[in-house]
């Protein structure tokens, strides 16, 4: 299995989130994470979808996504050609004598402590998903009370935006042999 990141620019219309997400289920793909928010343009939202790809090629889904009336653009963001970030809030159990170790770990990962209680601290950390995975692994032995992640968001590197990327049109226009 591999994880692919897809950016979908959509019109902000009722039902469009359901349409997009159910299309993955309908075509047999699992969504790993999905993040939605507003964009630089009023009326347009952008979804970043991380999808699990096993045997079937992803192409069928991106083409079907492109057919949705309220989908403006679909682009697959390659790992090297894009910047990806995720934010997590992690509540860790800390005995008073361990707190210092946890704070140190958080600093190494450029995280922040955003809440402290008798027996727990809550950490905010952001970065590529792999970095968050790594921190969580290190925090695991202390005892994770709960955790929430935003899911990945990503932008292509370089000067161009999603609306002027030619290659995104691949699925909407004739492919060349």
């Amino acid at each position: 299995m591999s994880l692919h990141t897809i950016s979908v620019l959509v019109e902000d219309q009722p039902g469009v989130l359901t349409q997009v997400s159910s299309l993955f289920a309908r075509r047999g793909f699992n969504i790993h994470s999905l993040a939605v928010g507003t964009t630089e343009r009023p009326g347009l939202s952008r979804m970043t979808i991380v999808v699990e790809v096993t045997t079937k090629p992803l192409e069928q889904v991106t083409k079907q996504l492109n057919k949705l009336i309220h989908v403006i653009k679909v682009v697959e963001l390659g790992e090297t050609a894009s910047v990806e970030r995720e934010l997590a809030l992690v509540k860790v159990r800390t005995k008073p004598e361990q707190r210092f170790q946890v704070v140190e770990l958080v600093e190494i990962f450029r995280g922040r402590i955003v809440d402290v209680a008798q027996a727990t601290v809550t950490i905010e950390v952001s970065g590529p998903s792999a970095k968050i995975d790594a921190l969580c692994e290190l925090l695991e032995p202390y005892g994770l009370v709960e955790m929430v992640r935003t899911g990945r968001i990503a932008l292509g590197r370089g000067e161009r935006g999603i609306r002027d990327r030619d290659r995104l049109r691949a699925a909407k226009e004739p492919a060349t042999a």
Partner: protein
Amino acid sequence: MARGGEKLTGAQALFRALELEGVDTVFGIPGGAILPAYDPLLESSIRHVLTRHEQGAGHAAEGYAHATGRVGVAMATSGPGGCNLVTPLADAMMDSIPLVAITGQVATAVVGNDAFQEAYMTGIAMPITKQTWMVTDANDVPRVVREAFHVASTGRPGPVLIDLPKDVLISDMRFEWQESVDLPGYRPTTRGSMKQVKAAVDLILRAERPVLYVGGGIVRSDASDELRRLAETGDLPVVTTLMGRGVFPDTHPLGLGMPGMHGNYTAVTAMQRADLLIAIGVRFDDRVTGNLAGFAPGAKVIHVDIDPAEIGKNRSVDVPIVGDARDVTAALARELAKLQEERGRPDHSAWLGTLRDWQERFPLRYRQEDGGPIKPQFVVERIYEATRGEATIVSGVGQHQMWASQFYRFTRPRQWINSGGLGTMGFAVPAALGAKVGRPDQRVVAIDGDGCFQMTAQELATSATESIPITVAILNNGYLGMVRQWQELFYGERYSQVHLTQDTPDFVKLAEAMGAVGLRAEDPGDVDAVLDKAMSITDRTVVIDFRVDPSENVFPMVPAGASNDDIILGPEGVRPVNDPAEAPVA
């Protein structure tokens, strides 16, 4: 357009917009939530055909669209009314039929409260439509109607749904009409890339065993003339899929008829041996390809489709062309003619000779014995003669559908109307009604199964009260025949829940009770006389109960999952499969 157009209610605006879209007929059934829309209907120029079930309304709208190429419109109330439209919507989605469904909805104030007859229609219909809209402001009615018709009829056509809450229908609004639509995410590609067209023609000129593989896309884009030009220019034999029957004449020397699971030997084998498939408006459906790995193993593929998602979905493609079938087919024919003038016309006589030889050696066949039971194939052939090959034929789903497609010889597009992708039993009678409404000049004959007929037979009452005369020929074998055939061949003759009996109901009496004429033929000698009688009646619906041989099976057959090379020509070639684990899935 100037602000502050005419003041109307949402319901009046709906009919004004439908009129502006050129709608002449709506099929439907009223009810609570849609009630306000049925009042301005009384003043509208639009005809409303009151069906007996919303599924009937949906299929009638499909039949209308199939037969005319215009958008079909079905109307229903909220909740159960909308839910009864689900099957026609799914059917239209699979077969790319332009259809606008209009449903009533509970008032916006109670949407989401499980109010009486509330169903989440836009959600239910979402995966089986191109798009759905719920209108929450009456001022939006004209815009949404315009968008809905635009989406349904352009690109790859398909069904859409407009959900209208009761308060929106009642509210006052200002009517403004704008022809253009603003849907930035919806821009179907219609013009094929010329570079790709040239690459395709290059392949065509180099092919020794080319086959044009064409289907429903040719019907939807009205590309039959262009197809014929292309085929004749390049001497290219043509197979027409179940959805494409009629787009190329079966009577034409280059016409090979239907490929696929129940296709004829020549059409199936031509594709298997081809070195080039020129696929236009088809989707490499499993009923055509059989086992994909064994399908047309030596063929390069040119694939023309307006839907980019179809290209490369099932079979890898050498030259993909996204575009409208008519536009691209015309370009291919033009370019081919031009290049043939320069390079000479390829000689396909050896290939065409082989095909002709197969046609002679392996024709579709059956044996009708005098005094023996009536063979269903014989009935279809006699219908062909009785209608002089000119009728519009509508079918249900099952054995009778395959016999109708095999033994009627189709010569024009829109002459053959059936449920191909979804395979919806009960399609024939209501779709035939819709076809007749759309084309009153034509004789419309439904060739139906006894099982299918019983799913939507109530629409005979619609045909009587609305004066829509059709002919219904029931190939009554007393069985869910297609399922019986599979149980015979693949489940060791273990028959389970397939027997209907030929006598119940009595179709002649049922027809009469429904205001139609009922006729029956029990002996092959009766068939022509009964058909003559039926043909002499043009002002009433006629139902003919043809008592046909219950044991007849459809051949040729490529068992599901098998390669097309393993085509079985007749009953003598069937190896019984007794191990259920090996049995293919219906």
